[in-house]
Protein backbone atom coordinates (compact mmCIF):
# COMPACT_ATOMS: atom_id res chain seq x y z
CA UNK A 1 0.00 0.00 0.00
CA UNK A 2 2.87 2.33 0.94
CA UNK A 3 4.43 1.66 -2.44
CA UNK A 4 1.22 2.54 -4.20
CA UNK A 5 0.97 5.86 -2.35
CA UNK A 6 4.61 6.60 -3.14
CA UNK A 7 4.04 5.86 -6.79
CA UNK A 8 1.01 8.16 -6.95
CA UNK A 9 3.02 10.93 -5.26
CA UNK A 10 5.84 10.43 -7.77
CA UNK A 11 3.44 10.75 -10.66
CA UNK A 12 1.94 13.93 -9.16
CA UNK A 13 5.42 15.39 -8.65
CA UNK A 14 6.25 14.54 -12.25
CA UNK A 15 3.13 16.25 -13.54
CA UNK A 16 4.05 19.55 -11.84
CA UNK A 17 5.95 20.79 -14.84
CA UNK A 18 6.83 24.39 -15.41
CA UNK A 19 4.69 26.25 -17.92
CA UNK A 20 6.28 25.62 -21.28
CA UNK A 21 5.64 27.27 -24.60
CA UNK A 22 3.60 25.17 -26.97
CA UNK A 23 3.06 25.71 -30.66
CA UNK A 24 -0.56 25.14 -31.67
CA UNK A 25 -2.70 25.36 -34.76
CA UNK A 26 -6.27 24.83 -35.87
CA UNK A 27 -7.49 22.32 -38.47
CA UNK A 28 -8.78 24.35 -41.42
CA UNK A 29 -9.50 21.53 -43.83
CA UNK A 30 -9.48 17.75 -43.53
CA UNK A 31 -9.98 14.82 -45.89
CA UNK A 32 -8.31 11.88 -47.66
CA UNK A 33 -5.92 11.35 -44.74
CA UNK A 34 -4.52 14.85 -45.00
CA UNK A 35 -5.23 17.93 -42.87
CA UNK A 36 -4.41 21.59 -43.59
CA UNK A 37 -3.62 23.43 -40.43
CA UNK A 38 -3.51 27.14 -39.78
CA UNK A 39 -0.96 28.24 -37.19
CA UNK A 40 1.87 25.88 -36.17
CA UNK A 41 4.32 28.61 -37.11
CA UNK A 42 7.29 26.78 -35.55
CA UNK A 43 6.56 23.35 -37.03
CA UNK A 44 9.55 21.50 -38.55
CA UNK A 45 9.50 19.32 -41.65
CA UNK A 46 8.60 15.74 -40.70
CA UNK A 47 7.71 16.78 -37.16
CA UNK A 48 5.10 14.73 -35.30
CA UNK A 49 1.91 16.70 -34.75
CA UNK A 50 -0.42 15.73 -31.92
CA UNK A 51 -3.87 15.97 -33.50
CA UNK A 52 -5.65 15.00 -30.27
CA UNK A 53 -7.77 11.88 -29.59
CA UNK A 54 -4.55 9.84 -29.67
CA UNK A 55 -3.99 10.54 -33.37
CA UNK A 56 -0.62 11.58 -34.73
CA UNK A 57 0.24 13.39 -37.93
CA UNK A 58 3.42 14.31 -39.77
CA UNK A 59 4.07 17.82 -41.11
CA UNK A 60 4.98 17.34 -44.77
CA UNK A 61 4.17 20.69 -46.39
CA UNK A 62 5.24 23.93 -44.74
CA UNK A 63 3.47 26.71 -46.63
CA UNK A 64 3.38 30.41 -45.94
CA UNK A 65 -0.03 30.34 -44.32
CA UNK A 66 -0.66 26.72 -43.46
CA UNK A 67 0.91 23.35 -42.74
CA UNK A 68 -0.02 20.19 -44.67
CA UNK A 69 -0.14 17.21 -42.33
CA UNK A 70 -0.55 13.52 -43.21
CA UNK A 71 -2.59 11.65 -40.63
CA UNK A 72 -1.48 8.29 -39.23
CA UNK A 73 -4.68 6.75 -37.92
CA UNK A 74 -8.42 7.19 -38.13
CA UNK A 75 -8.86 10.73 -39.44
CA UNK A 76 -12.67 10.50 -39.45
CA UNK A 77 -12.67 11.31 -35.73
CA UNK A 78 -11.09 14.70 -36.34
CA UNK A 79 -12.95 17.79 -37.46
CA UNK A 80 -12.43 21.31 -38.68
CA UNK A 81 -11.65 23.73 -35.87
CA UNK A 82 -9.91 21.14 -33.61
CA UNK A 83 -6.80 22.44 -31.90
CA UNK A 84 -3.57 20.57 -32.65
CA UNK A 85 -0.05 20.94 -31.23
CA UNK A 86 3.49 20.47 -32.44
CA UNK A 87 5.44 17.92 -30.38
CA UNK A 88 8.95 19.12 -31.23
CA UNK A 89 9.89 15.52 -32.10
CA UNK A 90 10.55 13.90 -35.44
CA UNK A 91 8.67 10.66 -36.12
CA UNK A 92 10.35 7.87 -34.19
CA UNK A 93 9.86 4.13 -33.95
CA UNK A 94 10.99 1.69 -31.27
CA UNK A 95 14.05 -0.34 -32.28
CA UNK A 96 16.08 -3.17 -30.79
CA UNK A 97 16.20 -6.93 -30.42
CA UNK A 98 12.92 -6.84 -28.52
CA UNK A 99 11.14 -6.44 -31.83
CA UNK A 100 12.38 -9.78 -33.17
CA UNK A 101 9.54 -12.24 -33.47
CA UNK A 102 6.95 -9.47 -33.49
CA UNK A 103 4.50 -8.08 -36.02
CA UNK A 104 4.26 -4.30 -35.80
CA UNK A 105 2.72 -1.42 -37.72
CA UNK A 106 4.43 1.67 -39.15
CA UNK A 107 4.62 3.32 -35.71
CA UNK A 108 6.12 0.18 -34.15
CA UNK A 109 2.89 -0.65 -32.33
CA UNK A 110 2.16 -4.38 -31.93
CA UNK A 111 -0.33 -6.05 -34.27
CA UNK A 112 0.17 -9.60 -33.02
CA UNK A 113 -1.63 -9.35 -29.69
CA UNK A 114 1.51 -10.34 -27.77
CA UNK A 115 1.54 -7.24 -25.56
CA UNK A 116 3.67 -4.10 -25.72
CA UNK A 117 6.82 -4.02 -27.85
CA UNK A 118 9.93 -3.73 -25.65
CA UNK A 119 11.97 -1.23 -27.70
CA UNK A 120 15.53 -0.66 -26.45
CA UNK A 121 15.67 2.77 -28.06
CA UNK A 122 13.77 4.95 -30.49
CA UNK A 123 15.18 5.86 -33.90
CA UNK A 124 13.94 8.62 -36.21
CA UNK A 125 12.19 7.28 -39.27
CA UNK A 126 13.97 9.70 -41.59
CA UNK A 127 17.73 9.54 -41.16
CA UNK A 128 20.63 10.45 -43.40
CA UNK A 129 22.42 7.44 -44.89
CA UNK A 130 25.99 6.64 -43.70
CA UNK A 131 28.56 8.75 -45.56
CA UNK A 132 31.50 7.71 -47.71
CA UNK A 133 34.00 7.67 -44.84
CA UNK A 134 31.89 5.32 -42.74
CA UNK A 135 31.36 2.78 -45.49
CA UNK A 136 33.25 -0.42 -46.17
CA UNK A 137 33.10 -2.45 -49.37
CA UNK A 138 30.73 -5.38 -49.54
CA UNK A 139 32.71 -8.55 -48.82
CA UNK A 140 30.56 -10.90 -46.75
CA UNK A 141 27.92 -13.08 -48.42
CA UNK A 142 24.20 -13.29 -47.79
CA UNK A 143 23.36 -16.95 -48.39
CA UNK A 144 19.87 -17.03 -49.82
CA UNK A 145 19.78 -20.82 -50.03
CA UNK A 146 18.52 -20.48 -53.60
CA UNK A 147 21.07 -22.18 -55.85
CA UNK A 148 20.52 -20.01 -58.92
CA UNK A 149 21.04 -16.82 -56.90
CA UNK A 150 23.96 -17.95 -54.74
CA UNK A 151 25.75 -19.29 -57.81
CA UNK A 152 25.05 -16.68 -60.47
CA UNK A 153 23.73 -13.51 -58.81
CA UNK A 154 25.44 -13.51 -55.40
CA UNK A 155 24.33 -10.99 -52.81
CA UNK A 156 26.66 -9.44 -50.24
CA UNK A 157 25.94 -7.93 -46.84
CA UNK A 158 25.29 -4.22 -47.33
CA UNK A 159 24.17 -4.64 -50.94
CA UNK A 160 20.89 -3.48 -52.48
CA UNK A 161 19.57 -6.14 -54.83
CA UNK A 162 16.28 -5.53 -56.59
CA UNK A 163 13.82 -8.39 -57.13
CA UNK A 164 11.72 -7.47 -60.12
CA UNK A 165 9.04 -9.25 -62.11
CA UNK A 166 5.38 -9.44 -63.02
CA UNK A 167 2.69 -10.47 -60.56
CA UNK A 168 2.82 -14.10 -59.35
CA UNK A 169 6.33 -14.85 -60.55
CA UNK A 170 7.76 -15.68 -57.11
CA UNK A 171 9.23 -12.34 -55.98
CA UNK A 172 8.01 -12.58 -52.39
CA UNK A 173 9.03 -16.25 -52.28
CA UNK A 174 12.67 -15.31 -52.93
CA UNK A 175 12.51 -12.92 -49.96
CA UNK A 176 10.81 -15.46 -47.69
CA UNK A 177 13.24 -18.23 -48.73
CA UNK A 178 16.13 -15.93 -47.84
CA UNK A 179 14.63 -15.22 -44.40
CA UNK A 180 14.07 -18.94 -43.79
CA UNK A 181 17.67 -19.71 -44.79
CA UNK A 182 19.01 -17.05 -42.41
CA UNK A 183 17.00 -18.58 -39.58
CA UNK A 184 18.44 -22.01 -40.46
CA UNK A 185 22.00 -20.66 -40.52
CA UNK A 186 21.53 -18.63 -37.31
CA UNK A 187 20.10 -21.65 -35.50
CA UNK A 188 22.87 -23.95 -36.72
CA UNK A 189 25.57 -21.49 -35.61
CA UNK A 190 23.90 -21.07 -32.22
CA UNK A 191 23.74 -24.85 -31.79
CA UNK A 192 27.43 -25.23 -32.67
CA UNK A 193 28.37 -22.25 -30.50
CA UNK A 194 30.27 -20.58 -33.35
CA UNK A 195 31.60 -17.31 -32.04
CA UNK A 196 32.75 -15.93 -35.39
CA UNK A 197 29.40 -16.34 -37.02
CA UNK A 198 27.53 -13.10 -37.58
CA UNK A 199 23.77 -13.75 -37.46
CA UNK A 200 21.68 -11.96 -40.04
CA UNK A 201 18.43 -10.57 -38.64
CA UNK A 202 15.60 -10.03 -41.08
CA UNK A 203 12.95 -7.34 -41.39
CA UNK A 204 10.06 -7.97 -43.73
CA UNK A 205 8.20 -4.78 -44.65
CA UNK A 206 4.80 -5.44 -46.25
CA UNK A 207 3.50 -2.36 -48.05
CA UNK A 208 -0.05 -2.17 -49.39
CA UNK A 209 -0.52 -5.94 -49.40
CA UNK A 210 -3.66 -7.91 -48.65
CA UNK A 211 -4.03 -8.79 -44.96
CA UNK A 212 -4.56 -12.42 -45.98
CA UNK A 213 -1.22 -12.47 -47.84
CA UNK A 214 0.60 -11.02 -44.82
CA UNK A 215 -1.07 -13.56 -42.52
CA UNK A 216 0.05 -16.36 -44.85
CA UNK A 217 3.63 -15.10 -44.87
CA UNK A 218 3.71 -14.87 -41.07
CA UNK A 219 2.31 -18.42 -40.84
CA UNK A 220 5.03 -19.65 -43.22
CA UNK A 221 7.77 -17.95 -41.22
CA UNK A 222 6.39 -19.41 -38.00
CA UNK A 223 6.10 -22.86 -39.54
CA UNK A 224 9.78 -22.78 -40.55
CA UNK A 225 10.91 -21.36 -37.20
CA UNK A 226 12.11 -18.10 -38.74
CA UNK A 227 10.11 -15.67 -36.61
CA UNK A 228 12.61 -15.48 -33.68
CA UNK A 229 15.07 -13.80 -36.07
CA UNK A 230 12.54 -11.70 -37.97
CA UNK A 231 10.55 -8.51 -37.54
CA UNK A 232 7.43 -8.16 -39.67
CA UNK A 233 6.37 -4.59 -40.31
CA UNK A 234 2.94 -4.60 -41.86
CA UNK A 235 1.19 -1.71 -43.52
CA UNK A 236 -1.59 -3.50 -45.39
CA UNK A 237 -3.79 -2.13 -48.16
CA UNK A 238 -6.36 -1.05 -45.57
CA UNK A 239 -3.85 1.28 -43.88
CA UNK A 240 -3.82 4.95 -44.80
CA UNK A 241 -1.58 5.98 -47.69
CA UNK A 242 0.50 7.95 -45.17
CA UNK A 243 1.23 4.78 -43.16
CA UNK A 244 2.16 2.91 -46.32
CA UNK A 245 4.45 5.73 -47.38
CA UNK A 246 6.30 5.72 -44.04
CA UNK A 247 6.46 1.92 -43.55
CA UNK A 248 9.75 1.24 -45.42
CA UNK A 249 11.45 4.13 -43.65
CA UNK A 250 10.35 2.71 -40.29
CA UNK A 251 11.75 -0.68 -41.38
CA UNK A 252 15.03 0.98 -42.37
CA UNK A 253 15.24 2.63 -38.92
CA UNK A 254 14.80 -0.79 -37.26
CA UNK A 255 17.55 -2.22 -39.48
CA UNK A 256 19.88 0.68 -38.74
CA UNK A 257 19.79 -0.13 -35.05
CA UNK A 258 21.33 -3.53 -35.81
CA UNK A 259 23.95 -1.89 -38.04
CA UNK A 260 24.83 0.75 -35.46
CA UNK A 261 25.29 -1.97 -32.86
CA UNK A 262 27.68 -4.03 -34.98
CA UNK A 263 25.14 -6.54 -36.23
CA UNK A 264 23.84 -7.43 -39.68
CA UNK A 265 20.29 -6.94 -40.89
CA UNK A 266 18.42 -7.77 -44.06
CA UNK A 267 15.35 -5.75 -45.08
CA UNK A 268 12.84 -6.85 -47.66
CA UNK A 269 10.63 -4.05 -48.99
CA UNK A 270 7.60 -5.79 -50.46
CA UNK A 271 6.92 -3.84 -52.60
CA UNK A 272 8.18 -0.43 -53.68
CA UNK A 273 5.71 -0.13 -56.58
CA UNK A 274 2.84 0.06 -54.09
CA UNK A 275 4.99 2.38 -51.98
CA UNK A 276 5.38 4.77 -54.91
CA UNK A 277 1.61 4.62 -55.49
CA UNK A 278 0.95 5.47 -51.82
CA UNK A 279 3.38 8.38 -52.02
CA UNK A 280 1.70 9.58 -55.21
CA UNK A 281 -1.64 9.58 -53.41
CA UNK A 282 -0.26 11.54 -50.46
CA UNK A 283 1.42 14.04 -52.79
CA UNK A 284 -1.69 14.55 -54.90
CA UNK A 285 -3.94 15.23 -51.92
CA UNK A 286 -1.28 17.60 -50.58
CA UNK A 287 -1.59 19.36 -53.97
CA UNK A 288 2.09 18.97 -54.80
CA UNK A 289 2.89 19.40 -58.48
CA UNK A 290 2.77 16.09 -60.33
CA UNK A 291 5.08 14.86 -63.07
CA UNK A 292 5.36 11.72 -65.19
CA UNK A 293 2.53 9.21 -64.56
CA UNK A 294 1.26 11.74 -61.94
CA UNK A 295 4.11 10.83 -59.58
CA UNK A 296 5.59 13.83 -57.78
CA UNK A 297 8.96 15.16 -58.86
CA UNK A 298 10.78 13.69 -55.88
CA UNK A 299 9.73 10.06 -56.35
CA UNK A 300 13.30 9.18 -57.38
CA UNK A 301 14.66 10.79 -54.23
CA UNK A 302 12.01 8.95 -52.21
CA UNK A 303 13.53 5.59 -53.17
CA UNK A 304 17.16 6.68 -53.43
CA UNK A 305 17.22 8.05 -49.89
CA UNK A 306 15.56 4.88 -48.63
CA UNK A 307 17.93 2.48 -50.40
CA UNK A 308 21.03 4.56 -49.65
CA UNK A 309 20.47 3.62 -46.02
CA UNK A 310 21.56 0.08 -46.88
CA UNK A 311 25.29 -0.06 -46.24
CA UNK A 312 28.15 -1.92 -44.67
CA UNK A 313 30.02 0.26 -42.22
CA UNK A 314 33.75 0.07 -41.49
CA UNK A 315 35.19 -1.82 -38.55
CA UNK A 316 35.76 1.24 -36.41
CA UNK A 317 32.08 2.14 -36.80
CA UNK A 318 30.96 -1.28 -35.62
CA UNK A 319 31.28 -3.41 -38.79
CA UNK A 320 27.50 -3.74 -39.05
CA UNK A 321 25.46 -3.84 -42.21
CA UNK A 322 22.01 -3.38 -43.65
CA UNK A 323 21.21 -5.32 -46.82
CA UNK A 324 18.15 -4.29 -48.81
CA UNK A 325 16.08 -6.48 -51.08
CA UNK A 326 13.48 -4.17 -52.59
CA UNK A 327 10.75 -5.75 -54.69
CA UNK A 328 9.19 -4.12 -57.75
CA UNK A 329 6.17 -5.44 -59.61
CA UNK A 330 6.20 -4.79 -63.34
CA UNK A 331 3.22 -4.65 -65.68
CA UNK A 332 3.44 -7.12 -68.57
CA UNK A 333 7.20 -7.42 -68.14
CA UNK A 334 7.82 -3.74 -68.82
CA UNK A 335 11.07 -2.93 -67.01
CA UNK A 336 11.31 0.41 -68.78
CA UNK A 337 8.38 1.92 -66.84
CA UNK A 338 9.05 4.90 -64.58
CA UNK A 339 9.40 3.32 -61.11
CA UNK A 340 11.23 0.12 -62.26
CA UNK A 341 13.90 2.11 -64.14
CA UNK A 342 14.32 4.42 -61.15
CA UNK A 343 14.88 1.56 -58.73
CA UNK A 344 17.05 -0.42 -61.19
CA UNK A 345 19.37 2.57 -61.45
CA UNK A 346 19.56 2.99 -57.66
CA UNK A 347 20.24 -0.63 -56.72
CA UNK A 348 23.43 -2.68 -57.08
CA UNK A 349 21.82 -5.21 -59.38
CA UNK A 350 18.55 -6.98 -60.02
CA UNK A 351 17.03 -10.43 -60.05
CA UNK A 352 14.59 -10.46 -62.93
CA UNK A 353 11.79 -13.02 -62.83
CA UNK A 354 10.03 -13.99 -66.05
CA UNK A 355 6.42 -15.08 -66.38
CA UNK A 356 7.21 -17.37 -69.32
CA UNK A 357 9.88 -19.25 -67.39
CA UNK A 358 7.53 -19.52 -64.40
CA UNK A 359 4.85 -21.20 -66.51
CA UNK A 360 7.42 -23.45 -68.20
CA UNK A 361 8.08 -24.82 -64.72
CA UNK A 362 11.45 -23.12 -64.22
CA UNK A 363 11.05 -22.01 -60.62
CA UNK A 364 12.55 -19.73 -59.35
CA UNK A 365 11.88 -18.13 -62.74
CA UNK A 366 15.13 -16.17 -62.84
CA UNK A 367 16.06 -14.71 -66.20
CA UNK A 368 19.82 -15.20 -66.31
CA UNK A 369 20.39 -12.70 -69.11
CA UNK A 370 18.66 -9.77 -67.42
CA UNK A 371 19.71 -10.51 -63.84
CA UNK A 372 22.94 -9.12 -62.50
CA UNK A 373 24.70 -8.49 -59.20
CA UNK A 374 27.15 -5.60 -59.40
CA UNK A 375 28.97 -5.99 -56.12
CA UNK A 376 28.01 -9.39 -54.75
CA UNK A 377 30.69 -11.40 -56.57
CA UNK A 378 33.28 -9.90 -54.21
CA UNK A 379 31.36 -11.49 -51.36
CA UNK A 380 30.92 -14.90 -52.97
CA UNK A 381 32.65 -17.89 -51.37
CA UNK A 382 35.80 -18.92 -53.25
CA UNK A 383 34.51 -22.48 -53.54
CA UNK A 384 31.34 -21.20 -55.16
CA UNK A 385 33.30 -19.02 -57.55
CA UNK A 386 35.38 -22.04 -58.56
CA UNK A 387 32.37 -24.14 -59.45
CA UNK A 388 29.95 -21.50 -60.72
CA UNK A 389 32.30 -19.08 -62.44
CA UNK A 390 31.38 -20.14 -65.98
CA UNK A 391 27.81 -21.13 -65.24
CA UNK A 392 26.12 -17.83 -66.02
CA UNK A 393 27.80 -17.63 -69.42
CA UNK A 394 27.03 -21.29 -70.19
CA UNK A 395 23.37 -20.82 -69.31
CA UNK A 396 23.04 -17.62 -71.35
CA UNK A 397 24.69 -19.41 -74.29
CA UNK A 398 22.31 -22.35 -73.84
CA UNK A 399 19.24 -20.08 -74.05
CA UNK A 400 20.54 -18.67 -77.34
CA UNK A 401 21.38 -22.09 -78.78
CA UNK A 402 18.12 -23.59 -77.56
CA UNK A 403 16.24 -20.99 -79.59
CA UNK A 404 17.98 -22.30 -82.74
CA UNK A 405 17.44 -25.91 -81.77
CA UNK A 406 13.69 -25.26 -81.61
CA UNK A 407 13.58 -25.09 -85.38
CA UNK A 408 14.74 -28.70 -85.47
CA UNK A 409 17.74 -27.90 -87.62
CA UNK A 410 20.84 -30.06 -87.49
CA UNK A 411 23.45 -28.88 -85.02
CA UNK A 412 27.07 -29.90 -84.62
CA UNK A 413 28.17 -32.14 -81.77
CA UNK A 414 29.69 -29.31 -79.75
CA UNK A 415 26.52 -27.22 -79.91
CA UNK A 416 24.43 -30.26 -79.05
CA UNK A 417 26.64 -30.91 -76.01
CA UNK A 418 26.23 -27.29 -74.88
CA UNK A 419 22.45 -27.59 -75.26
CA UNK A 420 22.37 -30.89 -73.36
CA UNK A 421 24.49 -29.48 -70.52
CA UNK A 422 22.31 -26.32 -70.44
CA UNK A 423 19.12 -28.38 -70.12
CA UNK A 424 20.58 -30.19 -67.16
CA UNK A 425 21.80 -27.00 -65.47
CA UNK A 426 18.29 -25.55 -65.80
CA UNK A 427 16.94 -28.66 -64.07
CA UNK A 428 19.56 -28.44 -61.30
CA UNK A 429 18.56 -24.83 -60.61
CA UNK A 430 14.88 -25.70 -60.21
CA UNK A 431 14.07 -25.58 -56.55
CA UNK A 432 10.80 -25.84 -54.61
CA UNK A 433 9.83 -22.91 -52.42
CA UNK A 434 10.71 -22.74 -48.71
CA UNK A 435 13.46 -25.33 -49.03
CA UNK A 436 16.80 -23.52 -49.02
CA UNK A 437 19.90 -25.56 -49.88
CA UNK A 438 23.01 -25.23 -47.68
CA UNK A 439 25.93 -23.63 -49.50
CA UNK A 440 28.17 -26.70 -49.04
CA UNK A 441 25.63 -28.90 -50.80
CA UNK A 442 25.26 -26.30 -53.56
CA UNK A 443 29.04 -26.31 -54.11
CA UNK A 444 29.27 -30.11 -54.16
CA UNK A 445 26.32 -30.54 -56.54
CA UNK A 446 27.63 -27.85 -58.85
CA UNK A 447 31.09 -29.41 -58.84
CA UNK A 448 29.52 -32.66 -60.05
CA UNK A 449 27.60 -30.78 -62.76
CA UNK A 450 30.69 -28.93 -63.89
CA UNK A 451 32.68 -32.14 -64.08
CA UNK A 452 30.18 -33.89 -66.29
CA UNK A 453 28.63 -36.31 -63.78
CA UNK A 454 25.15 -35.16 -64.78
CA UNK A 455 25.73 -35.47 -68.53
CA UNK A 456 24.61 -39.10 -68.79
CA UNK A 457 21.54 -38.59 -66.60
CA UNK A 458 18.27 -38.18 -68.49
CA UNK A 459 16.95 -34.60 -68.33
CA UNK A 460 13.66 -35.65 -66.73
CA UNK A 461 15.58 -37.52 -64.00
CA UNK A 462 18.06 -34.75 -63.15
CA UNK A 463 16.03 -33.55 -60.14
CA UNK A 464 15.81 -37.09 -58.81
CA UNK A 465 19.57 -37.47 -59.37
CA UNK A 466 20.17 -34.20 -57.50
CA UNK A 467 17.98 -35.25 -54.56
CA UNK A 468 19.71 -38.65 -54.29
CA UNK A 469 23.17 -37.04 -54.59
CA UNK A 470 22.26 -34.58 -51.83
CA UNK A 471 21.08 -37.47 -49.65
CA UNK A 472 24.27 -39.40 -50.38
CA UNK A 473 26.49 -36.44 -49.54
CA UNK A 474 24.68 -35.43 -46.35
CA UNK A 475 24.37 -38.94 -44.96
CA UNK A 476 27.55 -40.70 -46.15
CA UNK A 477 29.98 -37.93 -47.03
CA UNK A 478 29.15 -35.32 -44.38
CA UNK A 479 32.87 -34.77 -43.74
CA UNK A 480 33.37 -33.48 -47.31
CA UNK A 481 30.54 -30.98 -46.84
CA UNK A 482 32.00 -29.94 -43.49
CA UNK A 483 35.40 -29.38 -45.16
CA UNK A 484 33.87 -27.25 -47.90
CA UNK A 485 32.14 -25.16 -45.21
CA UNK A 486 35.36 -24.83 -43.24
CA UNK A 487 37.93 -24.31 -46.01
CA UNK A 488 35.57 -22.27 -48.21
CA UNK A 489 37.66 -23.23 -51.25
CA UNK A 490 38.20 -26.41 -53.26
CA UNK A 491 41.86 -27.43 -53.07
CA UNK A 492 43.43 -30.42 -54.79
CA UNK A 493 42.82 -32.73 -51.82
CA UNK A 494 39.17 -31.76 -51.61
CA UNK A 495 38.84 -32.11 -55.35
CA UNK A 496 40.11 -35.70 -55.13
CA UNK A 497 37.69 -36.49 -52.31
CA UNK A 498 34.81 -35.01 -54.26
CA UNK A 499 35.81 -37.07 -57.28
CA UNK A 500 35.89 -40.27 -55.25
CA UNK A 501 32.50 -39.49 -53.72
CA UNK A 502 31.00 -38.61 -57.11
CA UNK A 503 32.36 -41.83 -58.65
CA UNK A 504 30.93 -43.85 -55.78
CA UNK A 505 27.56 -42.21 -56.25
CA UNK A 506 27.68 -42.80 -60.00
CA UNK A 507 28.08 -46.52 -59.36
CA UNK A 508 24.97 -46.66 -57.18
CA UNK A 509 22.84 -44.43 -59.45
CA UNK A 510 20.40 -46.32 -61.62
Amino acid sequence: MDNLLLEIEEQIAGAKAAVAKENVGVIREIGDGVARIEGLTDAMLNEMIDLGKGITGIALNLDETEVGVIILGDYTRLQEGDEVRATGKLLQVPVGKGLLGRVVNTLGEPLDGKGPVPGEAAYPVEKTAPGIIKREKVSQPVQTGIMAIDAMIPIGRGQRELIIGDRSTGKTTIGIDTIINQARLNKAAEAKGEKDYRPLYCIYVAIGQKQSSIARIIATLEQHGAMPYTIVLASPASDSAASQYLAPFAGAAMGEWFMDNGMDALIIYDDLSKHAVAYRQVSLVLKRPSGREAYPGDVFYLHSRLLERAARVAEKYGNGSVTALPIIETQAGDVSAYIPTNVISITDGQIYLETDLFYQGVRPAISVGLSVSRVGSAAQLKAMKQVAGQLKGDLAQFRELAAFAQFGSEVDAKTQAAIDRGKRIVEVFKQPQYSPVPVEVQVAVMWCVQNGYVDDVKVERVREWQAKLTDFLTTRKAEILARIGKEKAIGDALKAELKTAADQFKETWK
Partner: protein
Amino acid sequence: MKTTKRTRRAARRLFRACFAGGRLDEGRVQLAVRRVAAARLRGSLPLLSHLRRLVKLERARHEAFVETATPLAPELRSSVASNLTRAYGPGVSLAFAENAALIGGMRVKVGSDVYDGSVQKALHALQERF
Protein backbone atom coordinates in the same frame (compact mmCIF):
# COMPACT_ATOMS: atom_id res chain seq x y z
CA MET B 1 -14.34 30.93 -56.21
CA LYS B 2 -11.01 29.40 -57.17
CA THR B 3 -7.81 30.99 -55.92
CA THR B 4 -5.11 30.41 -58.46
CA LYS B 5 -1.39 30.46 -57.82
CA ARG B 6 -1.18 33.74 -59.70
CA THR B 7 -3.90 35.32 -57.57
CA ARG B 8 -2.20 34.17 -54.40
CA ARG B 9 1.08 35.64 -55.58
CA ALA B 10 -0.60 38.97 -56.41
CA ALA B 11 -2.35 39.03 -53.02
CA ARG B 12 0.97 38.37 -51.30
CA ARG B 13 2.57 41.27 -53.21
CA LEU B 14 -0.26 43.56 -52.26
CA PHE B 15 -0.06 42.41 -48.67
CA ARG B 16 3.67 43.18 -48.52
CA ALA B 17 3.02 46.62 -49.93
CA CYS B 18 0.69 47.32 -47.00
CA PHE B 19 3.58 47.18 -44.52
CA ALA B 20 5.09 50.35 -43.09
CA GLY B 21 7.98 50.21 -40.63
CA GLY B 22 7.72 46.44 -40.28
CA ARG B 23 4.05 46.60 -39.23
CA LEU B 24 0.87 46.17 -41.17
CA ASP B 25 -0.58 49.60 -41.88
CA GLU B 26 -4.37 49.67 -41.59
CA GLY B 27 -4.69 52.73 -43.79
CA ARG B 28 -2.71 51.11 -46.59
CA VAL B 29 -4.79 47.95 -46.38
CA GLN B 30 -8.02 49.94 -46.66
CA LEU B 31 -6.66 51.92 -49.60
CA ALA B 32 -5.50 48.76 -51.37
CA VAL B 33 -8.88 47.08 -50.90
CA ARG B 34 -10.74 50.16 -52.16
CA ARG B 35 -8.53 50.46 -55.25
CA VAL B 36 -8.81 46.77 -56.16
CA ALA B 37 -12.59 46.80 -55.65
CA ALA B 38 -12.96 49.95 -57.75
CA ALA B 39 -10.86 48.54 -60.61
CA ARG B 40 -13.42 45.66 -61.01
CA LEU B 41 -10.83 43.47 -62.62
CA ARG B 42 -11.35 39.79 -63.36
CA GLY B 43 -10.11 37.79 -60.41
CA SER B 44 -10.20 40.67 -57.96
CA LEU B 45 -12.63 38.85 -55.68
CA PRO B 46 -10.37 35.85 -55.00
CA LEU B 47 -7.46 38.26 -54.69
CA LEU B 48 -9.26 40.23 -51.98
CA SER B 49 -10.35 37.03 -50.29
CA HIS B 50 -6.75 35.79 -50.07
CA LEU B 51 -5.60 39.23 -48.92
CA ARG B 52 -8.22 39.07 -46.15
CA ARG B 53 -6.78 35.74 -45.05
CA LEU B 54 -3.23 37.07 -44.94
CA VAL B 55 -4.35 40.14 -42.95
CA LYS B 56 -6.32 37.92 -40.56
CA LEU B 57 -3.30 35.67 -39.94
CA GLU B 58 -0.99 38.67 -39.50
CA ARG B 59 -3.36 40.19 -36.95
CA ALA B 60 -3.65 36.90 -35.11
CA ARG B 61 0.15 36.87 -34.77
CA HIS B 62 -0.07 40.07 -32.69
CA GLU B 63 -3.17 39.26 -30.69
CA ALA B 64 -2.85 37.89 -27.18
CA PHE B 65 -5.77 36.02 -25.74
CA VAL B 66 -5.56 35.61 -21.97
CA GLU B 67 -7.92 33.18 -20.25
CA THR B 68 -8.38 32.73 -16.52
CA ALA B 69 -10.86 30.82 -14.40
CA THR B 70 -11.72 33.93 -12.33
CA PRO B 71 -11.57 37.66 -13.22
CA LEU B 72 -8.01 38.98 -13.27
CA ALA B 73 -7.03 41.85 -10.95
CA PRO B 74 -6.02 45.11 -12.77
CA GLU B 75 -2.41 44.97 -11.53
CA LEU B 76 -2.06 41.37 -12.76
CA ARG B 77 -3.47 42.41 -16.14
CA SER B 78 -0.88 45.16 -16.51
CA SER B 79 1.87 42.78 -15.42
CA VAL B 80 0.76 40.23 -18.07
CA ALA B 81 0.62 43.01 -20.68
CA SER B 82 4.14 44.26 -19.90
CA ASN B 83 5.54 40.70 -19.95
CA LEU B 84 3.96 40.03 -23.33
CA THR B 85 5.23 43.33 -24.75
CA ARG B 86 8.71 42.38 -23.57
CA ALA B 87 8.48 38.99 -25.27
CA TYR B 88 6.69 39.94 -28.51
CA GLY B 89 7.48 43.65 -28.92
CA PRO B 90 5.11 46.58 -28.82
CA GLY B 91 1.77 46.48 -30.59
CA VAL B 92 0.42 43.26 -29.08
CA SER B 93 -3.30 43.70 -28.57
CA LEU B 94 -4.69 42.00 -25.49
CA ALA B 95 -8.05 40.35 -24.91
CA PHE B 96 -8.99 38.95 -21.50
CA ALA B 97 -11.65 36.29 -21.01
CA GLU B 98 -12.94 34.03 -18.25
CA ASN B 99 -13.10 30.29 -18.73
CA ALA B 100 -14.31 28.26 -15.77
CA ALA B 101 -13.17 25.03 -17.42
CA LEU B 102 -9.55 25.99 -16.63
CA ILE B 103 -10.40 25.48 -12.88
CA GLY B 104 -7.44 27.66 -11.89
CA GLY B 105 -4.31 29.29 -13.32
CA MET B 106 -3.92 31.06 -16.63
CA ARG B 107 -3.70 30.26 -20.35
CA VAL B 108 -2.15 32.78 -22.74
CA LYS B 109 -2.28 32.40 -26.54
CA VAL B 110 -0.29 34.70 -28.81
CA GLY B 111 -0.55 33.75 -32.47
CA SER B 112 0.20 30.04 -32.48
CA ASP B 113 2.18 30.12 -29.20
CA VAL B 114 0.38 28.88 -26.11
CA TYR B 115 1.52 29.18 -22.48
CA ASP B 116 -0.81 26.99 -20.47
CA GLY B 117 -0.45 27.16 -16.69
CA SER B 118 -3.99 26.08 -15.92
CA VAL B 119 -5.09 23.38 -13.48
CA GLN B 120 -7.00 21.77 -16.34
CA LYS B 121 -3.74 21.29 -18.26
CA ALA B 122 -1.94 19.91 -15.18
CA LEU B 123 -4.76 17.41 -14.61
CA HIS B 124 -4.61 16.42 -18.25
CA ALA B 125 -0.84 15.89 -17.98
CA LEU B 126 -1.36 13.78 -14.85
CA GLN B 127 -3.98 11.70 -16.64
CA GLU B 128 -1.52 11.06 -19.47
CA ARG B 129 1.22 10.03 -17.02
CA PHE B 130 -1.08 7.46 -15.45
